[in-house]
Protein backbone atom coordinates (compact mmCIF):
# COMPACT_ATOMS: atom_id res chain seq x y z
CA UNK A 1 0.00 0.00 0.00
CA UNK A 2 1.23 3.48 -0.82
CA UNK A 3 1.17 6.18 1.84
CA UNK A 4 0.52 8.86 -0.75
CA UNK A 5 -0.82 8.38 -4.23
CA UNK A 6 -1.49 11.25 -6.62
CA UNK A 7 -3.05 10.34 -9.91
CA UNK A 8 -3.06 12.94 -12.67
CA UNK A 9 -3.57 15.83 -10.26
CA UNK A 10 -3.99 19.17 -11.98
CA UNK A 11 -4.70 22.39 -10.13
CA UNK A 12 -5.53 25.53 -12.04
CA UNK A 13 -6.16 28.83 -10.33
CA UNK A 14 -8.41 31.16 -12.24
CA UNK A 15 -6.79 34.49 -12.73
CA UNK A 16 -8.05 37.39 -10.66
CA UNK A 17 -11.41 37.35 -8.94
CA UNK A 18 -13.59 37.09 -12.01
CA UNK A 19 -14.07 40.85 -11.84
CA UNK A 20 -13.95 42.78 -15.08
CA UNK A 21 -10.61 44.43 -15.66
CA UNK A 22 -8.95 42.44 -12.89
CA UNK A 23 -8.66 39.07 -14.54
CA UNK A 24 -5.35 37.58 -15.50
CA UNK A 25 -4.38 34.33 -17.15
CA UNK A 26 -5.22 31.21 -15.20
CA UNK A 27 -2.22 29.73 -13.42
CA UNK A 28 -1.57 26.03 -13.51
CA UNK A 29 0.06 25.19 -10.20
CA UNK A 30 0.10 21.44 -10.79
CA UNK A 31 0.03 19.75 -14.19
CA UNK A 32 -1.11 16.15 -14.36
CA UNK A 33 1.04 15.16 -11.39
CA UNK A 34 1.52 11.47 -10.63
CA UNK A 35 3.32 10.74 -7.40
CA UNK A 36 3.64 7.67 -5.21
CA UNK A 37 5.22 7.63 -1.79
CA UNK A 38 5.85 4.16 -0.42
CA UNK A 39 4.97 3.34 3.14
CA UNK A 40 7.90 3.63 5.52
CA UNK A 41 9.99 5.92 3.30
CA UNK A 42 11.35 9.34 4.03
CA UNK A 43 10.43 11.15 0.86
CA UNK A 44 12.05 14.48 0.08
CA UNK A 45 9.89 16.70 -2.08
CA UNK A 46 12.24 19.19 -3.65
CA UNK A 47 11.69 22.17 -5.84
CA UNK A 48 12.23 25.90 -6.03
CA UNK A 49 9.70 28.25 -4.48
CA UNK A 50 6.55 28.38 -6.57
CA UNK A 51 7.06 24.92 -8.09
CA UNK A 52 3.82 23.64 -6.57
CA UNK A 53 5.09 21.86 -3.46
CA UNK A 54 2.69 23.58 -1.09
CA UNK A 55 -0.18 23.15 -3.53
CA UNK A 56 0.53 19.42 -3.58
CA UNK A 57 0.47 19.29 0.21
CA UNK A 58 -2.69 21.42 0.29
CA UNK A 59 -4.35 18.88 -2.02
CA UNK A 60 -3.32 16.02 0.30
CA UNK A 61 -4.94 17.82 3.24
CA UNK A 62 -8.03 18.98 1.31
CA UNK A 63 -7.08 22.63 1.82
CA UNK A 64 -7.42 23.05 -1.94
CA UNK A 65 -9.40 20.92 -4.38
CA UNK A 66 -7.75 19.66 -7.56
CA UNK A 67 -9.15 20.75 -10.91
CA UNK A 68 -8.60 17.20 -12.18
CA UNK A 69 -7.18 13.94 -10.91
CA UNK A 70 -7.40 12.28 -7.55
CA UNK A 71 -5.33 12.00 -4.41
CA UNK A 72 -5.26 9.16 -1.90
CA UNK A 73 -3.55 9.34 1.47
CA UNK A 74 -3.10 6.16 3.54
CA UNK A 75 -5.53 4.55 1.12
CA UNK A 76 -8.23 7.10 1.94
CA UNK A 77 -9.68 9.61 -0.47
CA UNK A 78 -8.05 12.96 0.30
CA UNK A 79 -11.21 14.82 -0.67
CA UNK A 80 -14.11 12.84 0.78
CA UNK A 81 -12.34 11.19 3.70
CA UNK A 82 -10.18 14.12 4.71
CA UNK A 83 -11.09 14.05 8.39
CA UNK A 84 -10.08 10.37 8.69
CA UNK A 85 -6.88 11.21 6.80
CA UNK A 86 -6.03 13.96 9.26
CA UNK A 87 -6.71 11.67 12.22
CA UNK A 88 -3.72 9.58 11.09
CA UNK A 89 -1.47 12.30 9.70
CA UNK A 90 0.75 14.77 11.53
CA UNK A 91 1.20 18.04 9.71
CA UNK A 92 3.69 20.86 9.94
CA UNK A 93 2.10 23.31 7.52
CA UNK A 94 3.80 26.17 5.77
CA UNK A 95 2.86 29.78 6.45
CA UNK A 96 1.04 29.10 9.72
CA UNK A 97 1.10 31.25 12.78
CA UNK A 98 0.43 30.04 16.32
CA UNK A 99 -2.27 31.37 18.63
CA UNK A 100 -0.48 34.32 20.20
CA UNK A 101 -2.45 34.28 23.43
CA UNK A 102 -2.22 30.54 24.06
CA UNK A 103 0.78 28.88 25.68
CA UNK A 104 2.79 26.12 24.07
CA UNK A 105 1.14 23.67 26.45
CA UNK A 106 -2.32 24.80 25.39
CA UNK A 107 -1.37 24.28 21.74
CA UNK A 108 -0.21 20.74 22.47
CA UNK A 109 -3.27 20.06 24.64
CA UNK A 110 -5.46 21.18 21.77
CA UNK A 111 -3.73 18.78 19.36
CA UNK A 112 -3.95 15.95 21.91
CA UNK A 113 -7.65 16.59 22.48
CA UNK A 114 -8.33 16.94 18.76
CA UNK A 115 -6.59 13.66 17.98
CA UNK A 116 -7.99 11.87 20.99
CA UNK A 117 -4.41 10.97 21.90
CA UNK A 118 -2.79 10.22 25.26
CA UNK A 119 0.52 12.03 24.79
CA UNK A 120 2.07 14.13 27.51
CA UNK A 121 2.68 17.75 26.48
CA UNK A 122 5.87 17.89 28.56
CA UNK A 123 7.39 14.85 26.85
CA UNK A 124 6.64 16.20 23.40
CA UNK A 125 8.00 19.62 24.33
CA UNK A 126 11.15 17.91 25.57
CA UNK A 127 11.47 16.06 22.28
CA UNK A 128 11.19 19.14 20.10
CA UNK A 129 13.29 21.28 22.41
CA UNK A 130 10.82 23.82 23.79
CA UNK A 131 10.43 22.38 27.29
CA UNK A 132 11.54 25.57 29.00
CA UNK A 133 9.10 27.68 26.96
CA UNK A 134 6.14 25.34 27.35
CA UNK A 135 4.14 27.59 29.66
CA UNK A 136 4.89 30.81 27.86
CA UNK A 137 2.49 32.36 25.38
CA UNK A 138 3.29 31.37 21.81
CA UNK A 139 3.01 35.02 20.76
CA UNK A 140 6.45 35.54 22.26
CA UNK A 141 8.04 32.57 20.48
CA UNK A 142 10.67 33.07 17.80
CA UNK A 143 10.00 31.66 14.34
CA UNK A 144 12.16 28.66 15.13
CA UNK A 145 10.36 27.97 18.42
CA UNK A 146 6.98 28.22 16.73
CA UNK A 147 8.27 25.78 14.14
CA UNK A 148 9.32 23.37 16.90
CA UNK A 149 5.99 23.77 18.68
CA UNK A 150 4.01 22.92 15.57
CA UNK A 151 6.32 20.00 14.81
CA UNK A 152 5.42 18.84 18.33
CA UNK A 153 1.72 19.15 17.48
CA UNK A 154 2.37 17.06 14.37
CA UNK A 155 3.98 14.30 16.43
CA UNK A 156 0.92 13.96 18.69
CA UNK A 157 -0.83 10.61 18.46
CA UNK A 158 1.96 8.70 16.68
CA UNK A 159 0.77 9.50 13.15
CA UNK A 160 1.19 6.97 10.34
CA UNK A 161 2.29 9.74 8.03
CA UNK A 162 4.09 13.00 8.71
CA UNK A 163 3.67 15.79 6.18
CA UNK A 164 6.23 18.52 6.78
CA UNK A 165 6.14 21.60 4.57
CA UNK A 166 9.54 23.35 4.59
CA UNK A 167 10.23 22.08 8.12
CA UNK A 168 13.60 23.75 8.55
CA UNK A 169 12.24 27.27 8.00
CA UNK A 170 13.47 29.50 10.79
CA UNK A 171 15.69 26.83 12.33
CA UNK A 172 19.39 27.31 12.88
CA UNK A 173 21.71 24.52 11.63
CA UNK A 174 21.53 22.82 15.00
CA UNK A 175 17.74 22.95 14.98
CA UNK A 176 17.66 21.62 11.42
CA UNK A 177 19.81 18.69 12.52
CA UNK A 178 17.50 17.96 15.46
CA UNK A 179 14.60 18.09 13.03
CA UNK A 180 16.30 15.47 10.85
CA UNK A 181 16.94 13.29 13.91
CA UNK A 182 13.24 13.40 14.74
CA UNK A 183 12.37 12.60 11.13
CA UNK A 184 14.62 9.53 11.24
CA UNK A 185 13.24 8.43 14.60
CA UNK A 186 9.69 8.70 13.27
CA UNK A 187 10.60 6.64 10.22
CA UNK A 188 12.22 4.02 12.47
CA UNK A 189 9.00 3.92 14.50
CA UNK A 190 7.25 2.92 11.26
CA UNK A 191 5.87 6.23 10.04
CA UNK A 192 6.17 7.51 6.50
CA UNK A 193 7.63 11.01 6.25
CA UNK A 194 6.90 13.33 3.35
CA UNK A 195 8.73 16.58 3.51
CA UNK A 196 9.17 19.42 1.15
CA UNK A 197 12.06 21.78 0.88
CA UNK A 198 13.68 24.17 -1.54
CA UNK A 199 16.99 23.58 0.21
CA UNK A 200 18.69 20.45 -1.00
CA UNK A 201 20.97 20.21 2.01
CA UNK A 202 17.95 19.55 4.22
CA UNK A 203 16.77 16.64 2.09
CA UNK A 204 19.99 14.96 1.07
CA UNK A 205 21.17 13.58 4.43
CA UNK A 206 17.88 12.04 5.45
CA UNK A 207 15.76 10.98 2.49
CA UNK A 208 15.27 7.51 1.07
CA UNK A 209 13.75 8.92 -2.07
CA UNK A 210 13.71 12.34 -3.63
CA UNK A 211 11.25 13.83 -6.08
CA UNK A 212 12.01 17.08 -7.83
CA UNK A 213 9.10 19.29 -8.78
CA UNK A 214 9.37 22.07 -11.28
CA UNK A 215 6.54 24.19 -12.68
CA UNK A 216 3.97 21.76 -11.32
CA UNK A 217 5.56 18.68 -12.87
CA UNK A 218 7.72 15.96 -11.40
CA UNK A 219 10.96 16.24 -13.41
CA UNK A 220 12.95 13.60 -11.54
CA UNK A 221 12.38 10.95 -8.94
CA UNK A 222 14.98 8.60 -7.55
CA UNK A 223 17.11 7.76 -4.56
CA UNK A 224 19.75 10.33 -3.61
CA UNK A 225 22.42 7.98 -5.08
CA UNK A 226 20.43 7.50 -8.24
CA UNK A 227 20.09 11.22 -8.80
CA UNK A 228 23.79 11.67 -8.29
CA UNK A 229 24.56 9.01 -10.86
CA UNK A 230 22.10 10.46 -13.33
CA UNK A 231 24.01 13.70 -13.10
CA UNK A 232 27.12 11.90 -14.35
CA UNK A 233 28.80 11.53 -11.03
CA UNK A 234 31.89 13.40 -12.25
CA UNK A 235 34.03 14.93 -9.58
CA UNK A 236 36.94 17.22 -10.20
CA UNK A 237 39.81 16.51 -7.85
CA UNK A 238 42.53 19.09 -7.44
CA UNK A 239 45.53 17.46 -5.75
CA UNK A 240 48.75 19.05 -4.55
CA UNK A 241 51.56 16.52 -4.27
CA UNK A 242 55.08 16.81 -2.89
CA UNK A 243 56.64 15.16 -5.95
CA UNK A 244 55.03 14.13 -9.21
CA UNK A 245 56.79 11.26 -11.03
CA UNK A 246 55.51 10.46 -14.55
CA UNK A 247 54.71 6.92 -13.39
CA UNK A 248 52.17 8.24 -10.95
CA UNK A 249 50.36 10.26 -13.66
CA UNK A 250 50.30 7.21 -15.94
CA UNK A 251 48.97 4.99 -13.16
CA UNK A 252 46.16 7.44 -12.37
CA UNK A 253 45.27 7.78 -16.03
CA UNK A 254 44.92 3.99 -16.28
CA UNK A 255 42.40 3.83 -13.41
CA UNK A 256 38.78 2.89 -13.98
CA UNK A 257 36.45 5.88 -13.82
CA UNK A 258 39.12 8.46 -14.51
CA UNK A 259 38.40 10.47 -17.65
CA UNK A 260 41.01 13.24 -17.78
CA UNK A 261 44.22 13.97 -15.93
CA UNK A 262 46.12 17.25 -16.23
CA UNK A 263 49.50 17.73 -14.56
CA UNK A 264 50.89 21.18 -13.85
CA UNK A 265 54.07 21.19 -11.77
CA UNK A 266 53.13 19.73 -8.40
CA UNK A 267 49.41 20.11 -9.00
CA UNK A 268 47.24 17.43 -10.55
CA UNK A 269 43.68 17.98 -11.80
CA UNK A 270 41.64 14.80 -12.21
CA UNK A 271 38.09 14.39 -13.55
CA UNK A 272 36.75 11.11 -12.24
CA UNK A 273 33.66 9.26 -11.11
CA UNK A 274 32.51 10.17 -7.63
CA UNK A 275 33.42 6.71 -6.33
CA UNK A 276 36.96 6.76 -7.73
CA UNK A 277 38.24 9.59 -5.55
CA UNK A 278 39.92 7.50 -2.87
CA UNK A 279 41.49 5.13 -5.44
CA UNK A 280 43.04 8.12 -7.21
CA UNK A 281 44.55 9.36 -3.96
CA UNK A 282 45.91 5.98 -2.90
CA UNK A 283 47.33 5.29 -6.38
CA UNK A 284 49.28 8.54 -6.18
CA UNK A 285 50.64 7.63 -2.75
CA UNK A 286 51.60 4.15 -4.01
CA UNK A 287 53.49 5.58 -6.99
CA UNK A 288 55.78 7.93 -5.15
CA UNK A 289 53.59 11.04 -5.16
CA UNK A 290 52.72 11.86 -1.51
CA UNK A 291 49.51 13.91 -1.32
CA UNK A 292 49.94 17.22 0.47
CA UNK A 293 46.41 18.57 0.00
CA UNK A 294 43.37 17.98 -2.17
CA UNK A 295 40.05 19.59 -2.97
CA UNK A 296 36.89 18.23 -4.55
CA UNK A 297 34.48 20.26 -6.67
CA UNK A 298 31.40 19.61 -8.74
CA UNK A 299 28.90 16.84 -9.13
CA UNK A 300 27.35 17.57 -5.79
CA UNK A 301 23.65 16.94 -5.58
CA UNK A 302 23.42 20.70 -5.39
CA UNK A 303 24.36 20.87 -9.06
CA UNK A 304 21.98 18.07 -9.93
CA UNK A 305 19.22 19.99 -8.26
CA UNK A 306 20.19 23.19 -10.04
CA UNK A 307 20.24 21.47 -13.40
CA UNK A 308 16.75 20.10 -12.83
CA UNK A 309 15.23 23.23 -11.46
CA UNK A 310 16.79 25.99 -13.50
CA UNK A 311 17.94 24.75 -16.88
CA UNK A 312 16.37 22.15 -19.14
CA UNK A 313 14.88 19.15 -17.34
CA UNK A 314 17.44 16.88 -19.04
CA UNK A 315 20.79 16.44 -17.33
CA UNK A 316 24.00 15.49 -18.96
CA UNK A 317 24.39 11.72 -19.12
Amino acid sequence: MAAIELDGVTKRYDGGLGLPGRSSDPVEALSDLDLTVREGDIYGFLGPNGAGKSTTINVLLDFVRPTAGSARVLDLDARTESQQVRERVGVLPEGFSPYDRLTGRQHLDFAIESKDAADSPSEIAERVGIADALDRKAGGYSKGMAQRLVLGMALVGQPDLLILDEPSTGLDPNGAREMRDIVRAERDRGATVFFSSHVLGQVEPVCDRVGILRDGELVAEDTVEGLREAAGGETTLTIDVERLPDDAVTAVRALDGVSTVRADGQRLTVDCADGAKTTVLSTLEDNGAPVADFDTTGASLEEVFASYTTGEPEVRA
Partner: protein
Amino acid sequence: MSTLAVARKDFQDAIRSRVLLGLTGLFVLFVAGASYFFARIQPAPGGGDPTALVLIFSLLTPASLLVPIIGLALGYKAVAGERESGRIKLLLSLPHSRLDVVLGKTLGRTSVLVVPIIVGFAVGAAVIFWQSSRFTPVNYLAFAFVTVLLGLAYIAIGVAISSATTSTFRALIGGISLLAVLEFLWQQVLIAVVYLVNGLSLPQQPPGDWYYFLQNLPPGSAYSSAARSLLPQNPTTLAITGPTPDAFYLQDWFGFVILAVWIVVPLVLGYLRFEGTDL
Protein backbone atom coordinates in the same frame (compact mmCIF):
# COMPACT_ATOMS: atom_id res chain seq x y z
CA MET B 1 -16.71 16.51 20.13
CA SER B 2 -14.54 18.10 17.49
CA THR B 3 -16.78 21.18 17.44
CA LEU B 4 -16.44 21.49 21.21
CA ALA B 5 -12.65 21.22 21.03
CA VAL B 6 -12.58 24.09 18.55
CA ALA B 7 -15.06 26.09 20.65
CA ARG B 8 -13.07 25.56 23.84
CA LYS B 9 -9.81 26.62 22.22
CA ASP B 10 -11.50 29.66 20.68
CA PHE B 11 -12.88 30.66 24.05
CA GLN B 12 -9.51 30.11 25.75
CA ASP B 13 -7.94 32.37 23.18
CA ALA B 14 -10.59 35.09 23.31
CA ILE B 15 -10.94 35.11 27.10
CA ARG B 16 -7.35 36.35 27.27
CA SER B 17 -8.01 39.18 24.88
CA ARG B 18 -8.58 42.78 25.85
CA VAL B 19 -11.63 42.67 23.61
CA LEU B 20 -13.51 40.64 26.19
CA LEU B 21 -12.46 42.94 29.00
CA GLY B 22 -13.54 45.96 26.96
CA LEU B 23 -16.86 44.37 26.04
CA THR B 24 -17.59 43.43 29.63
CA GLY B 25 -16.80 46.93 30.81
CA LEU B 26 -18.89 48.52 28.09
CA PHE B 27 -21.84 46.27 28.71
CA VAL B 28 -21.74 46.66 32.51
CA LEU B 29 -21.58 50.43 32.14
CA PHE B 30 -24.45 50.33 29.70
CA VAL B 31 -26.82 48.16 31.73
CA ALA B 32 -25.99 49.74 35.07
CA GLY B 33 -26.16 53.26 33.67
CA ALA B 34 -29.40 52.69 31.79
CA SER B 35 -30.98 50.94 34.77
CA TYR B 36 -30.08 53.83 37.01
CA PHE B 37 -31.24 56.40 34.47
CA PHE B 38 -34.63 54.84 33.86
CA ALA B 39 -35.20 54.01 37.53
CA ARG B 40 -34.34 57.51 38.73
CA ILE B 41 -35.21 59.98 36.06
CA GLN B 42 -37.80 58.45 33.75
CA PRO B 43 -41.18 58.35 35.45
CA ALA B 44 -43.16 55.13 35.03
CA PRO B 45 -46.40 55.32 32.99
CA GLY B 46 -49.10 56.54 35.34
CA GLY B 47 -46.48 57.76 37.80
CA GLY B 48 -45.47 56.05 41.00
CA ASP B 49 -42.80 53.51 41.70
CA PRO B 50 -41.05 52.21 38.56
CA THR B 51 -41.36 48.47 38.22
CA ALA B 52 -38.64 46.18 36.98
CA LEU B 53 -40.90 45.51 34.01
CA VAL B 54 -40.75 49.11 32.94
CA LEU B 55 -37.01 49.07 33.36
CA ILE B 56 -36.73 46.05 31.15
CA PHE B 57 -38.75 47.73 28.44
CA SER B 58 -36.57 50.76 28.75
CA LEU B 59 -33.48 48.61 28.22
CA LEU B 60 -34.83 46.88 25.13
CA THR B 61 -34.07 49.55 22.57
CA PRO B 62 -30.52 50.40 23.67
CA ALA B 63 -29.71 46.70 24.07
CA SER B 64 -30.99 45.97 20.58
CA LEU B 65 -28.41 48.43 19.26
CA LEU B 66 -25.43 47.61 21.47
CA VAL B 67 -25.63 43.81 21.42
CA PRO B 68 -25.63 43.54 17.59
CA ILE B 69 -22.50 45.68 17.46
CA ILE B 70 -20.80 43.51 20.07
CA GLY B 71 -21.94 40.33 18.29
CA LEU B 72 -20.57 41.44 14.94
CA ALA B 73 -17.35 42.64 16.55
CA LEU B 74 -16.91 39.17 18.00
CA GLY B 75 -17.83 37.33 14.83
CA TYR B 76 -16.33 39.07 11.83
CA LYS B 77 -12.75 37.92 12.41
CA ALA B 78 -13.65 34.38 13.47
CA VAL B 79 -12.81 32.55 10.25
CA ALA B 80 -11.40 35.22 7.90
CA GLY B 81 -8.89 36.21 10.59
CA GLU B 82 -7.71 32.61 10.84
CA ARG B 83 -7.30 32.45 7.09
CA GLU B 84 -5.43 35.74 6.96
CA SER B 85 -3.00 34.70 9.68
CA GLY B 86 -2.58 31.12 8.48
CA ARG B 87 -3.88 29.74 11.77
CA ILE B 88 -6.61 28.00 9.79
CA LYS B 89 -3.93 25.59 8.56
CA LEU B 90 -3.07 24.73 12.13
CA LEU B 91 -6.73 24.17 12.90
CA LEU B 92 -7.49 22.11 9.80
CA SER B 93 -4.28 20.09 9.96
CA LEU B 94 -5.92 18.49 12.96
CA PRO B 95 -8.89 16.23 12.33
CA HIS B 96 -11.59 18.91 12.33
CA SER B 97 -14.07 19.38 9.53
CA ARG B 98 -14.84 22.80 8.17
CA LEU B 99 -18.28 22.47 9.75
CA ASP B 100 -16.55 21.96 13.11
CA VAL B 101 -14.67 25.19 12.51
CA VAL B 102 -17.79 27.23 11.69
CA LEU B 103 -19.88 25.80 14.54
CA GLY B 104 -17.01 25.74 17.04
CA LYS B 105 -16.17 29.37 16.33
CA THR B 106 -19.81 30.37 16.70
CA LEU B 107 -20.08 28.51 19.99
CA GLY B 108 -16.78 29.85 21.31
CA ARG B 109 -17.64 33.45 20.48
CA THR B 110 -21.10 33.04 21.97
CA SER B 111 -19.53 31.92 25.24
CA VAL B 112 -17.39 35.02 25.08
CA LEU B 113 -20.53 37.13 24.67
CA VAL B 114 -22.34 35.40 27.52
CA VAL B 115 -19.71 36.58 30.00
CA PRO B 116 -20.35 40.35 29.61
CA ILE B 117 -24.09 39.80 29.37
CA ILE B 118 -24.17 37.88 32.66
CA VAL B 119 -21.89 40.34 34.44
CA GLY B 120 -23.73 43.32 32.96
CA PHE B 121 -27.12 42.03 33.91
CA ALA B 122 -25.99 41.09 37.41
CA VAL B 123 -24.78 44.62 38.00
CA GLY B 124 -27.97 45.97 36.40
CA ALA B 125 -30.06 43.79 38.71
CA ALA B 126 -28.25 45.20 41.72
CA VAL B 127 -28.92 48.74 40.54
CA ILE B 128 -32.60 47.99 39.92
CA PHE B 129 -32.94 46.27 43.27
CA TRP B 130 -31.45 49.30 44.89
CA GLN B 131 -33.70 51.76 43.05
CA SER B 132 -36.97 49.88 42.75
CA SER B 133 -39.08 48.21 45.39
CA ARG B 134 -40.43 45.55 43.06
CA PHE B 135 -37.86 43.38 41.38
CA THR B 136 -38.85 40.28 39.41
CA PRO B 137 -35.77 38.11 38.84
CA VAL B 138 -37.59 35.66 36.57
CA ASN B 139 -38.47 38.36 34.04
CA TYR B 140 -35.01 39.69 34.31
CA LEU B 141 -33.41 36.30 33.59
CA ALA B 142 -35.70 35.78 30.63
CA PHE B 143 -34.62 39.16 29.34
CA ALA B 144 -30.96 38.19 29.71
CA PHE B 145 -31.64 34.94 27.83
CA VAL B 146 -33.30 36.68 24.88
CA THR B 147 -30.43 39.16 24.81
CA VAL B 148 -27.98 36.26 24.43
CA LEU B 149 -30.10 35.00 21.50
CA LEU B 150 -29.85 38.38 19.81
CA GLY B 151 -26.09 38.33 20.35
CA LEU B 152 -25.93 34.81 18.96
CA ALA B 153 -27.84 35.89 15.85
CA TYR B 154 -25.31 38.64 15.18
CA ILE B 155 -22.37 36.37 15.97
CA ALA B 156 -23.83 33.87 13.50
CA ILE B 157 -24.16 36.62 10.89
CA GLY B 158 -20.60 37.78 11.63
CA VAL B 159 -19.13 34.26 11.52
CA ALA B 160 -21.07 33.55 8.31
CA ILE B 161 -19.71 36.65 6.58
CA SER B 162 -16.30 35.77 7.96
CA SER B 163 -16.55 32.25 6.51
CA ALA B 164 -17.56 33.52 3.11
CA THR B 165 -14.66 35.90 2.59
CA THR B 166 -10.89 35.76 2.71
CA SER B 167 -10.20 39.13 4.28
CA THR B 168 -11.21 40.50 7.66
CA PHE B 169 -11.51 43.93 6.08
CA ARG B 170 -14.17 42.71 3.67
CA ALA B 171 -15.89 40.86 6.50
CA LEU B 172 -15.91 44.05 8.56
CA ILE B 173 -17.32 46.15 5.72
CA GLY B 174 -19.95 43.48 5.01
CA GLY B 175 -20.91 43.28 8.68
CA ILE B 176 -21.20 47.05 9.13
CA SER B 177 -23.27 47.39 5.95
CA LEU B 178 -25.63 44.64 7.03
CA LEU B 179 -25.94 46.14 10.51
CA ALA B 180 -26.71 49.57 9.07
CA VAL B 181 -29.37 48.22 6.71
CA LEU B 182 -31.00 45.89 9.24
CA GLU B 183 -30.95 48.00 12.37
CA PHE B 184 -30.80 51.63 11.25
CA LEU B 185 -32.18 51.94 7.72
CA TRP B 186 -34.72 49.10 7.62
CA GLN B 187 -37.86 51.30 7.75
CA GLN B 188 -36.51 53.53 5.00
CA VAL B 189 -35.53 50.53 2.90
CA LEU B 190 -39.03 49.09 3.26
CA ILE B 191 -40.70 52.36 2.34
CA ALA B 192 -38.39 52.70 -0.66
CA VAL B 193 -39.27 49.18 -1.81
CA VAL B 194 -43.00 49.84 -1.41
CA TYR B 195 -42.60 53.13 -3.26
CA LEU B 196 -40.83 51.39 -6.16
CA VAL B 197 -43.20 48.40 -6.31
CA ASN B 198 -46.21 50.70 -6.19
CA GLY B 199 -45.12 52.56 -9.32
CA LEU B 200 -43.16 55.40 -7.73
CA SER B 201 -45.91 56.49 -5.36
CA LEU B 202 -46.95 55.53 -1.87
CA PRO B 203 -50.18 53.51 -1.57
CA GLN B 204 -53.25 55.34 -0.17
CA GLN B 205 -54.69 52.51 1.92
CA PRO B 206 -52.85 51.19 5.01
CA PRO B 207 -50.46 48.32 4.28
CA GLY B 208 -51.38 44.70 5.01
CA ASP B 209 -49.99 42.30 7.58
CA TRP B 210 -47.08 41.37 5.32
CA TYR B 211 -45.71 44.87 5.74
CA TYR B 212 -45.70 44.59 9.52
CA PHE B 213 -44.10 41.18 9.19
CA LEU B 214 -41.28 42.68 7.14
CA GLN B 215 -40.96 45.47 9.67
CA ASN B 216 -40.37 42.89 12.37
CA LEU B 217 -37.85 40.93 10.35
CA PRO B 218 -34.51 42.44 11.47
CA PRO B 219 -32.94 40.63 14.45
CA GLY B 220 -33.28 43.72 16.66
CA SER B 221 -37.06 43.88 16.09
CA ALA B 222 -37.42 40.12 16.49
CA TYR B 223 -35.53 40.48 19.77
CA SER B 224 -37.97 43.10 21.06
CA SER B 225 -40.92 40.90 20.10
CA ALA B 226 -39.40 37.82 21.70
CA ALA B 227 -38.60 39.76 24.90
CA ARG B 228 -42.19 41.08 25.09
CA SER B 229 -43.60 37.57 24.72
CA LEU B 230 -41.78 36.46 27.86
CA LEU B 231 -43.27 39.17 30.06
CA PRO B 232 -46.56 38.68 31.90
CA GLN B 233 -49.61 40.03 30.09
CA ASN B 234 -50.74 42.56 32.70
CA PRO B 235 -52.10 46.09 32.24
CA THR B 236 -48.64 47.63 32.49
CA THR B 237 -47.34 45.47 29.68
CA LEU B 238 -50.35 46.19 27.50
CA ALA B 239 -50.07 49.88 28.17
CA ILE B 240 -46.58 49.78 26.71
CA THR B 241 -46.95 47.31 23.84
CA GLY B 242 -50.54 47.91 22.73
CA PRO B 243 -52.81 45.20 21.36
CA THR B 244 -51.26 42.38 19.29
CA PRO B 245 -52.57 41.61 15.74
CA ASP B 246 -54.17 38.25 14.93
CA ALA B 247 -51.80 36.78 12.33
CA PHE B 248 -49.54 34.18 13.97
CA TYR B 249 -46.44 35.59 12.34
CA LEU B 250 -47.14 38.95 13.98
CA GLN B 251 -47.44 37.46 17.46
CA ASP B 252 -44.64 38.35 19.84
CA TRP B 253 -43.50 34.72 20.25
CA PHE B 254 -42.80 34.59 16.52
CA GLY B 255 -39.78 36.76 17.32
CA PHE B 256 -38.10 33.55 18.53
CA VAL B 257 -38.70 31.90 15.17
CA ILE B 258 -37.25 34.90 13.35
CA LEU B 259 -34.21 34.93 15.66
CA ALA B 260 -33.70 31.20 15.07
CA VAL B 261 -33.82 31.79 11.32
CA TRP B 262 -31.25 34.57 11.71
CA ILE B 263 -28.98 32.14 13.53
CA VAL B 264 -29.37 29.12 11.24
CA VAL B 265 -29.64 30.54 7.72
CA PRO B 266 -26.48 32.71 7.75
CA LEU B 267 -24.48 29.84 9.27
CA VAL B 268 -25.68 27.41 6.61
CA LEU B 269 -24.89 29.84 3.79
CA GLY B 270 -21.52 30.79 5.27
CA TYR B 271 -20.59 27.16 5.80
CA LEU B 272 -21.55 26.14 2.27
CA ARG B 273 -19.40 28.91 0.86
CA PHE B 274 -16.48 28.01 3.15
CA GLU B 275 -16.79 24.28 2.41
CA GLY B 276 -16.57 24.82 -1.34
CA THR B 277 -13.55 27.07 -1.34
CA ASP B 278 -9.77 26.65 -1.46
CA LEU B 279 -8.03 27.92 1.63
